[in-house]
């Protein structure tokens, strides 16, 4: 029942938001985020033994409304709750057109995300997967930049095609369960594992395309930079910190355990694609001048690394993913907040027109440096812990090419340092440029960033809580 609350609270608050006129809706969003965070925190603390909840739904299709809160689900729910709270706090003073609809849709997308992370039934998972997308589609198309309509539409169609492929795969799997049709996770796992390797191989493609588009993995990433650039920043945060995790989460929950032979067959190919993505995206990031595009490409590189580790088949890599899923969500939220503040102060995201933040807005500059360094995985930040384990995992991978993989992927770190330091240099240092609004951090922005930075430093020094939470899942994923 407690799991259902995670879905119900944002859902009810979201629906209510549409009715409320004026700025009261912000308060509602804040209350809802706090409540969700409290529940997510409670679930996380008790996730040592997974919590289950189910309700009969459509028996003749073999589907139940069943939810499961194990370590991984709980962690991602917690991340969703934290990010949502930070978004609400740091946008407190920002006027937005038609706040009711805006916050309503934000909360509904949170509902979808929670559902995806908690679903323990294939069809329920699919439904939430789609439902998380719809509000985001409206958010981007309504509040985004100039080219928002085409860009968002491309994004929508792209991911929709992927989801439909996944649906075909899921239906196929549900029919294979012995005896009756069933979508329950254990049944799907049993059905998948019992299939002949050849069937698993093409079934893998159906499912993986959906997840790869969501993450996104090269060459399915083309929707991503445009969409991130054109979306309003709060939505970009939802997309990059949370929605891409849906893809990775789905790989871990609905692919690796379900189709072991398919995974064994394709894992090298996937890792190669991921590594191409890392190098390619990092190189493009180096030449970007638009801050949003730079971060968008750096996010492709980071997700690529996580996905590569997922297919490396090593234990430490799996731990790394768990840690890094959370950390990446936190760091990239911080990055986007910084971008939106810079855009707000200077009226531009073009790095060539920025500079001198350290003298004009020193607090902001400090935050920017800390978050950026976490983003390139400097020791003592949370990024380091995650990336170290990911690389270690790639190195210890089961593939015969594991060393090559690690070395080439390692280029990503160097390139990452190049574009990030370059960005810091161009924005924080150099000649001071004129600000449109000459103001350092306001109280609410301060609070939002403080949460982020506190988490960065805390998890950089002591990542154990995350590892403890997810150890059950990792040991199940890697035998």
């Amino acid at each position, binding site marked *: 029942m407690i799991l259902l609350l995670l879905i119900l609270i944002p859902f009810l608050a979201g629906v209510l938001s549409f009715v409320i006129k004026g700025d009261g809706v912000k308060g509602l969003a804040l209350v809802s985020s706090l409540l969700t965070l409290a529940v997510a925190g409670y679930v996380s603390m008790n996730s040592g033994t997974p919590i289950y909840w189910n309700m009969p739904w459509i*028996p003749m299709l073999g589907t139940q409304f069943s939810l499961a809160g194990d370590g991984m689900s709980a962690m991602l729910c917690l991340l969703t709750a934290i990010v949502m709270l930070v978004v609400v706090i740091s946008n407190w003073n920002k006027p937005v057109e038609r706040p009711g609809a805006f916050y309503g849709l934000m909360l509904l997308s949170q509902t979808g995300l929670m559902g995806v992370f908690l679903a323990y039934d294939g069809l329920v998972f699919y439904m939430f997967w789609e439902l998380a997308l719809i509000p985001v589609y409206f958010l981007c*198309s*309504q509040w985004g930049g100039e080219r928002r*309509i085409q860009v968002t539409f491309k994004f929508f169609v792209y991911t929709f095609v992927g989801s439909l492929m996944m649906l075909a795969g899921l239906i196929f799997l549900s029919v294979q369960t012995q005896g009756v*049709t069933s979508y329950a996770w254990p049944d799907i796992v049993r059905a998948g594992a019992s299939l002949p390797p050849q069937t698993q191989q093409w079934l893998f493609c159906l499912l993986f395309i959906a997840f790869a588009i969501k993450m996104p993995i090269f060459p399915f990433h083309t929707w991503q930079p445009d969409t991130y650039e054109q979306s309003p920043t709060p939505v970009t945060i939802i997309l990059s910190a949370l929605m891409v995790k849906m893809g990775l989460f789905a790989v871990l929950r609905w692919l690796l355990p379900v189709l072991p032979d398919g995974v064994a067959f394709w894992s090298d190919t996937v890792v190669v694609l991921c590594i191409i993505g890392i190098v390619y995206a990092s190189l493009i990031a180096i030449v970007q001048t638009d801050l949003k595009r730079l971060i968008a490409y750096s996010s492709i590189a980071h997700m690529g690394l996580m996905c590569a580790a997922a297919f490396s088949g090593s234990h430490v890599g799996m731990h790394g993913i768990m840690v890094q899923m959370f950390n990446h969500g936190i760091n990239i939220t911080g990055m986007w907040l910084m971008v939106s503040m810079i855009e707000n102060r200077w009226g531009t995201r073009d790095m060539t027109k920025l500079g001198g933040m350290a003298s004009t807005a020193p607090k902001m500059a400090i935050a920017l440096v800390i978050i950026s360094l976490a983003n390139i995985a400097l020791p003592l930040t949370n990024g380091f812990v995650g990336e170290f384990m990911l690389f270690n995992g790639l190195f210890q991978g089961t593939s015969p090419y594991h060393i090559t993989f690690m070395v080439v992927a390692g280029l990503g770190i160097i390139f990452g340092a190049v574009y990030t330091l370059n960005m810091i240099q161009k924005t924080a240092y150099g000649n001071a440029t004129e600000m449109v609004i000459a103001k350092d951090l306001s109280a609410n922005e301060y609070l939002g960033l403080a949460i982020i930075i506190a988490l960065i430093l805390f998890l950089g020094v002591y990542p154990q809580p995350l590892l403890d939470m997810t150890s059950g899942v990792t040991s199940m994923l890697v035998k």
Partner: protein
Amino acid sequence: MKAIIAATILGIIMMFASIMVKNKSSVVALATVLLFLLLGVNIWDIITTPATQPQSFFNNMLRVDRFSMWFNALMTGCTCLYVLLVGKEIKKVGSHVAEYFALIIFILCGLYILSSYSNMLMLFIGIEILSIPQYILAGSDKKNLKSSEAALKYFLMGSFSTGILLMGITLLYGATGSFNVANFSFLQADTLNPLALSGIILIVIALGFKVSAAPMHMWTPDVYDGSPTPFTAYMATVAKAAAFIAFLKLFTGSFGSISSRWMLVVSIITAATLLIGNVTAVFQQSVKRMLAYSSIAQAGFMLFAILAVNAIAWQGIIIYSVAYTVATIGIFTVLMKLKDYTYDGFNGLAKKEPLLAFVTTIFLFSLAGIPLTGGFMAKYYVLYAAVSQGHLLWLVIFGLLMAAISVYYYFRVIIAMYFKQGDPELHPVSGGDKFLLVLTCLLVILIGIAPQLFLNGI
């Protein structure tokens, strides 16, 4: 059985009502009452018939089972909803309002026969009773050249396909010596007479015409576009579902044992229907014409139920018929409120009439197959039926890709409503209309959340 008799009597009453009742509004009210009466008769039929025992009538010409009664009741319910939503618009079409309603009741009578025929002659009679009122309805706007063109085109092509159907039935009779559909289930795939096979293929073509499957779909866009919009809404939904039920009954019930012989032809027809319907719909500028192509595309999905040849297909066709009918009638209702039927006519609707835009969005979601709407469950059931069949996964994947294309043209309407500026010209929308639209919208969501409610009767 009671329903068929009731539909005939009520249809005749409606016809003569035009003499007694002069006021158009009273005619609409009378028609609504009669249709609800018909719905009552259907429900009475379900309640009084024992669940397990199918009943035969007229020397086994008709065989009414649980499934057909349930289908009849649901489709009659959809017709009631249709008349409530669209009744006012039907008034505006021409001067003989009572006759239009009489024709609609006759179409229902044809539907009842098609859902329970057990003899090829009844199939033929059912198809004719279903089609002839449609020819008339298509041309009911007599002063409009497009409407007359639609009627003529529909009539010529329709009679042609009826001829093919008759020829198919004849060949089949020649091969088997029987009109009774129960006797066809003894046909064997390996000893199938070429005469019988040609008959079956001719029947596929004729029924394919009625459900507007490619390449027999050519009439659809012109007829649906040219007919008065209220009647398009009916022809594209309930009347089409009736043709589908006839198709399914014959092919799953009687020709199921020889499915290997006709499977390939129907698979190709399905793929072609999906491809042509979806791709052509992308290029339309008028929403009404887009909906005509979308009805072809949706027919492609319903064909999956025919291909599946299993028990789930029966459920699939019911859910699909209901979900598609409700959403399409809803969207046509909104369309009729607009003065401009192009996409641009929808520009800025969300600002002017937020509620109208919202319900339209839900209807479009349903047609596109977004979860939690009826359309998703409908697509899900037919695809699930096809996947269970075992050999059709390629076609299922193809169908899903086509569903992704359909998002393009359905979402264009949403984009126009929400993200484009404009001041759409509207006919007045009353509070009652809005209430009914919200009710329809809730129904769409209910089908998506609890499809089992619509399958309880079988």
